[in-house]
């Protein structure tokens, strides 16, 4: 599918399918594993991440000419942390039961690599509108992915979906899927399934991320920390640094 670059629709498509943060880039694994005990929790986590991601992308993009280059990391961290604090209080006030089940994973959205990664890779360099839709697309892609994981875990582990019984009465729930090991299993099998589809379509599966091998000096200073998955020689920022020095 060919779309004009940096338009809202292209950004949404990119976030949800082409560069899905959870399945294609494998970022934000902590919340994808921790908050997917049920479909409801997964949706709650996904949507709060989406809100924070699109708002912080918008603000960072608006401020991109004001923030000095050297100070951008601390500035991004403070902006993201402020939005997270706001969402934290709004959720505590309006959806207390969801807030209680998500626990410390709401404030931990601050260190979600997706948000920092998008700020660094996209919002800091592009127009506000496109950045906002980039955040929205990435957030929705993430929501969709963890909703899938959450659904699998809830249906297999408890026999319910959104709290309603959907498996036949004789079904014995496989408890382990709601517990910690189930998260690893479901996530692993889903990515294996995606790899299978990719191999079937004749494309190569994602290479393993190993920061100690792939990270070069430049990636160390880059907030994506080599998680962009690019090899150093193909990284634009490295090339740029090589040209100037």
């Amino acid at each position: 599918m060919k779309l004009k670059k940096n338009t809202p629709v292209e950004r949404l498509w990119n976030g949800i399918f082409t560069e899905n943060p959870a399945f294609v880039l494998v970022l934000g694994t902590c919340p994808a594993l921790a908050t997917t005990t049920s479909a409801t929790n997964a949706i709650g986590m996904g949507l709060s991440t989406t809100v924070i991601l699109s708002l912080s992308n918008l603000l960072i993009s608006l401020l991109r000419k004001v923030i000095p280059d050297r100070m951008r990391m601390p500035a991004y961290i403070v902006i993201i942390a402020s939005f997270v604090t706001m969402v934290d209080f709004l959720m505590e006030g309006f959806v207390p039961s969801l807030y209680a089940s998500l626990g410390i994973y709401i404030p931990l959205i601050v260190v979600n690599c997706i948000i920092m990664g998008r700020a660094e890779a996209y919002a800091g360099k592009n127009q506000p509108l496109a950045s906002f839709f980039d955040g929205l697309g990435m957030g929705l892609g993430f929501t969709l992915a963890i909703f899938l994981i959450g659904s699998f875990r809830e249906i297999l582990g408890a026999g319910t979906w959104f709290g309603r019984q959907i498996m036949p009465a004789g079904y014995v729930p496989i408890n382990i899927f709601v517990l910690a090991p189930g998260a690893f299993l479901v996530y692993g099998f889903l990515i294996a399934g995606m790899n299978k589809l990719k191999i079937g379509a004749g494309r190569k599966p994602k290479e393993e991320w190993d920061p100690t091998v792939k990270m070069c000096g430049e990636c160390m200073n880059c907030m994506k920390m080599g998680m962009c998955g690019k090899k150093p020689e193909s990284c634009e920022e490295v090339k740029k640094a090589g040209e100037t020095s």
Partner: protein
Amino acid sequence: MTLLILAVNACLINNVVLSQFLGICSFLGVSKKSDTAKGMGAALTFVLTLSSFVCGVLYNVLLVPLHLEYLKTIVFIVIVAALVQFVEMFTKKYAKNLYEALGIYLPLITTNCAVLGVALLNVQNGYGILTGTVYGFATALGYWIAIQLLSYIREKMIYNDVPKSFQGFPIVMVTAALMSIAFFGFSALK
């Protein structure tokens, strides 16, 4: 004695990676070789102990008396980021050997959610400065145990014939799932 129980609990029973899912990124990313796992484990133990102490002091001495508890997320993340930078600069200048051993892992720690997670858990559970520091140290030790074990398994896994679609990330996830089941055994210690 209560501190010891707390430490065993944080280290083995409620293992930070295998049952609380904090610090998964580096757990999966840096566990390919046992040497790098050792470096990462040591660096995290160092930073996490220090950061839970500093965050505990700042929260109890500064934020609580000023009724600024709601700023804790922002304050903690800034402290963690600054602390990692500071440790990096300090070891570079005064402890060259330590810097060479741990240096490349330090930037990875800023975005490691275990560090911020422990600082927030300390507040949530109402731990004081001493309890919080012990909890931080034990949590980091638990992380180290988990990542070290995974790295040994992965070193052996090279000789295994893994199905093509499971190569790389998925097989590591399945391994982690089995480790997580094994760690359930520790809950009998309670």
